[in-house]
């Protein structure tokens, strides 16, 4: 019976549609068009704001921020200082050594900071060389002394007339060489 009117069947159908899905309200139930999925206009202007759930990057960012801070704390003054030295003092030029002039040991370097370090902090290479040779000389003398000591010891032990391997005894002037009546006198 068409008397069970079209309206009733339509209402039953409408009741079966889920009310939560958007587009399913009474206003556009009868008048909506079928959405064409192939011709959708996509514009990424103001998209829907999403709350992206990801692990915390607070600690990483804090670490990198602190790293940057502490590196730049001394890095920037050092960079400024080195730039000023290079701009206002500048590197040295290579010239021929003039006759009868002995350059100081720092005058063999080019950059002004290297020259300053060589002049005020380090010993001159000549002094280092002499220090090393002095150390070698001392060690050589120690080694030679040890060898001669062994040699002397060997001789004294063999011949027995040196001071090292003597044993204290009674005075040999106390020996009585006179003839005796019994063996135990």
């Amino acid at each position, binding site marked *: 019976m068409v008397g069970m009117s079209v309206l009733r069947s339509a209402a039953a159908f409408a009741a079966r549609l889920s009310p939560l899905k958007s587009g399913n309200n009474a206003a556009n139930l009868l008048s909506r068009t079928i959405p064409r999925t192939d011709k959708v206009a996509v514009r990424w202007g103001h998209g829907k704001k999403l709350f992206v759930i990801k692990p915390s990057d607070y600690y990483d960012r804090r670490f990198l921020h602190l790293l940057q801070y502490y590196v730049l704390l001394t890095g920037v003054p050092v960079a400024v200082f080195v730039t000023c030295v290079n701009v206002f003092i500048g590197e*040295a030029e290579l010239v*021929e050594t003039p006759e009868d002039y002995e350059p100081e040991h720092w005058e063999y370097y080019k950059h002004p900071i290297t020259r300053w370090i060589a002049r005020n902090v380090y010993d001159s290479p000549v002094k280092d060389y002499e220090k090393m040779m002095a150390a070698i000389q001392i060690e050589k003398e120690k080694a030679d002394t040890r060898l001669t000591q062994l040699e002397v010891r060997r001789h004294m032990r063999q011949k027995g007339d040196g001071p090292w391997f003597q044993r204290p005894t009674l005075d040999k002037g106390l020996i009585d060489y006179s003839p005796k009546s019994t063996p135990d006198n």
Partner: protein
Amino acid sequence: MPADHDKGAYPEPPRQTPAVDKQTALPNPALILSKLFYYSVDLPVTTFRDAVDSFRANNKSVYYHQKFRRVPDLIDCQEGDYICYYEAEMQWRRDYKVDQEIVKVIQERMRACHQREGASYHQNCGKEIQQFNEVTKNFQSRYGDLGAYASGRKCLMKQKERMMAAAQAQSA
């Protein structure tokens, strides 16, 4: 600025560019570009360099090349004279560094020649290539496989081995 070469010793040939004979009223784009380059790059850089040079003018300093006296080699040292050994070792190390730099200079010459000649360097750079091969062969035979703990004694022993091998090759 690094000094240019001696123009008196290597004079440039007389310029053969023809005189400008402009027959159009249109501007010359090459001239425009060169003027643009001059005002945008050349002039600022030159003024900056002149300013920096004027700052540095009061604090000019020089440095010298250090020359070392020759000392007796390891061969001329008495046995057990450790001071002599030390001085010979230091001299050997300085000579090793000098030889490394010599090889680098020869290599730089060959690379410059290669860069200049382009694709035809096999033909035109024969002298540099031959020099480089000779120098590297000699360096390899003298200092070749001594390693990081190279010393004058090890080099001397290598020389002895070389001389023994040469004597054996000669007698065989």
